[in-house]
C-alpha cells in the first residue's frame, strides 16, 4: 500500500499476507506508524489498496466499485472508532440504529432493534439519552451497539479502549469478546493497549508495514509466537 507524498510515494504496507478467521477476536498490535490502521482501513473497505488482493468474506474488495464497497461496508462490517464518533444530537438508540437507517430500514423499526440491543449491553435505561449525558464507557457501548445492530460478519475496532479508563476498557473488551464468540463473525481490534491483550484469541504484530509475528496471548497477556 502506497501513499503519495509530494512527488514521491511512501510505501506503508509491504507485501502483507494476513488471514482473519471467524469466531475469534484478533488483534493487530504494533508501534505507532507501523501500518496497522492502514491495514484496518483496507480490510474494512474504507481504503483501496494500491496493489495486491483483498478478500473479505469471499468478496474481492480490490475489484469492487466505490459504490459496491460502500454497500458492502454498510451491510457486512461494523465499525468502532477510537473517539466513538456518535452524532451528538441523536439519542443512544438513534445512534446505534444508524447502519439500519442508512440501509433504508424504517425509523421506528431500526430504533426498536437498536434499543433492544442496547438493553442487552446494559444500557436499557439510557436509550433516549444523548451522548453528552453518557459516560465514556457508555458511549463506547453505544458505539458497539451501532457496530453490531445490523449483524455484520466483520467488526473492526480502532483503539476501542484508548479513551477509556481501565475498568471501562475491560468492560468494553468483554462485550467485544462476547461478540466474537459468534461463529459467523470475526472481530479485529487495532490497539497498542497491552491491558487488553488477554482478550485476544490471536495477536498479529506489525512493524514498519510488515507482519513480524503472530501468536496467542499468554496467561500474563503477552503474545506467544
Amino acid at each position, binding site marked *: 500500500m502506497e501513499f503519495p507524498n509530494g512527488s514521491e510515494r511512501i510505501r506503508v504496507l509491504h507485501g502483507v499476507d494476513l488471514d482473519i478467521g471467524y469466531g475469534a477476536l484478533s488483534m493487530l498490535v504494533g508501534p505507532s506508524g507501523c501500518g496497522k*490502521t492502514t491495514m*484496518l*482501513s483496507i480490510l*474494512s473497505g*474504507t*481504503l483501496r489498496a494500491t496493489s495486491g488482493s483483498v478478500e473479505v468474506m469471499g468478496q474481492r474488495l480490490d475489484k469492487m466499485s466505490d*459504490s459496491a464497497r*460502500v*454497500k458492502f*461496508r*454498510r*451491510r457486512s*462490517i*461494523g*465499525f468502532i*472508532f*477510537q*473517539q466513538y*464518533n*456518535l*452524532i*451528538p*444530537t*441523536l439519542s443512544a438508540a*438513534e445512534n446505534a440504529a*444508524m*447502519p439500519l*437507517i*442508512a*440501509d*433504508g*430500514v*424504517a*425509523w421506528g423499526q*431500526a430504533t426498536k432493534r437498536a434499543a433492544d440491543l442496547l438493553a442487552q449491553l446494559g444500557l436499557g435505561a439510557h436509550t433516549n439519552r444523548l451522548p453528552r449525558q453518557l459516560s465514556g464507557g457508555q458511549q463506547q457501548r453505544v458505539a458497539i451497539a*451501532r457496530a453490531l445492530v445490523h449483524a455484520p460478519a466483520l467488526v473492526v475496532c*480502532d483503539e476501542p479502549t484508548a479513551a477509556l479508563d481501565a475498568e471501562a476498557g475491560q468492560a468494553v473488551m468483554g462485550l467485544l469478546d462476547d461478540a466474537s464468540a459468534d461463529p459467523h463473525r470475526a472481530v479485529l481490534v487495532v490497539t497498542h493497549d497491552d491491558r487488553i491483550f488477554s482478550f485476544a484469541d490471536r495477536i498479529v504484530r506489525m512493524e514498519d508495514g510488515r507482519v513480524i509475528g503472530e501468536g496467542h496471548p499468554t496467561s500474563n497477556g503477552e503474545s506467544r509466537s
Partner: protein
Amino acid sequence: MGMLMVALKMLTGDKVKYFGLIFGIAFATLLMTQQMSIFIGLLTWGANPVLDVREAQVWVMDPRVKQPDQGQPISDQMLYRIRSVDGVEWAVPYLRTAANLKTADGGLAAVTLIGVDNQSMIGLPLANRAEAMQAIRGRNAVVLDKNTLGLVFPDGREPIGATAEINDNRVVVRGLTQSLTNFSGLPTAYMKYSDAIAITPPERNKLSFVLAHAVDGVSPQELARRITETTGLKAQVREDFAAAGTQFIIENTGIPISFGAAIGLGVLVAIIITALTLAMFIQENLKNLGALKAIGVTNGQVLSMVVFQSLYVGFLGYGLGIGGTAFFLYLGQSTPALMGFKMLWQVIAGSATLIATIVIGSALVSVRRVLVMDPAVVFRG
C-alpha cells in the same frame, strides 16, 4: 427518509446555528421583499395619475411632455381638432396643474388641481363617483381626495362645507373621493373644468391634456397614431403614458439606486449568513459525517442530507420573512404614505427562487468537502 430525519435532528440539535440560519434568512427575505414591494409601489405612484382615469384610452398632449405631472398646456382648439379625427368616439378636456390651497384659518397646502369635463366628469376617480359627480356640479365646488385630507385640514375637522381659497379664489369643499396615491404626495382637488381654468393664472393656453376614446373597431394604438398624424400632438395609449410616468421616476430620481442597494444588501446578507453558517456546521460535524461515510452512508445520502437541511431552514426563514413583509404592508394600508403598496406575486416568486438558489448553492459549496473526504480519515484520529 431515515437519513433526512437524521439530518433534521443534526440541524435542530445545534440551536445556535439553527435559529441563526432561520432568522438570518428571514431578515434577508424581509429586507429584499419589503424594499422591492415599496420600490414597485413607488414606481406605480408614477403611473397612478394616468391609471386613475379609467375611461380614457388615449392621452393627447404637447409633444414635449414626458410624464403626467409635467405641465405644458396646449391650445383649446386642439380639443375640437381631436374630436374631428376619424375613429374618435369622444374626447374631453383634462386639466392637471399645481395650485395653492389656503384654508379659512390660514393654513396653506400645495395641491394638484384637476379640472374634469363639465358634462361627463371623466377624470374623477371611481371611488364615490356618483356622490362626487353630484358634489362637483355646484359653482366653485371642489372635491378632495380623502387619503390626503390630513395635509389640508391637519386638525381633522369635517371638510364638507369648509371654505378655502385656491389661487386666491374662493372654493367650497362639497365632497370627497379617493384617488390612487401619486408620487408627489400632494393632496388632489377636483373641480369642473370650467371652474378650474377660471382660477388658474392667466396664460395663453391652459389645456393640459385631451382624453380620448376610440369607436368600436378602432384600436387605441391606431387612434393614437391617427391623432398624432392629424394634429402633430403626442398621443399615447393609457398604458404607455402610465409607463412613462414610472420610467420618469426610474431615470430621474435616486430611487432605483437606493432601493437597489437595499435589495442587494439583503441578497448579500442571505448569502453570507447561509454560506458561513452552513460551512461552520459542516466543519463542526466533519468527523461525524466521516464516520457516517465509513459505516456506509453514500455520498448521495450525505448530499441529500445537507441540501435538505438548507431547504428546511430556507423554507422556515423565507416564510417568516415574507410574513413580516406582508404584516408591514398590511399595517401600512391605513397610512397614506404607504397606501397602495402590495406584494406582487412576481416579488414572492422571485425572492423565493433567489433564496432557494442561495441556500442550495451554499449547501453544495459546503458539502463538497464531505463528498471528497476519504472515509478512512476517521481512523486517523
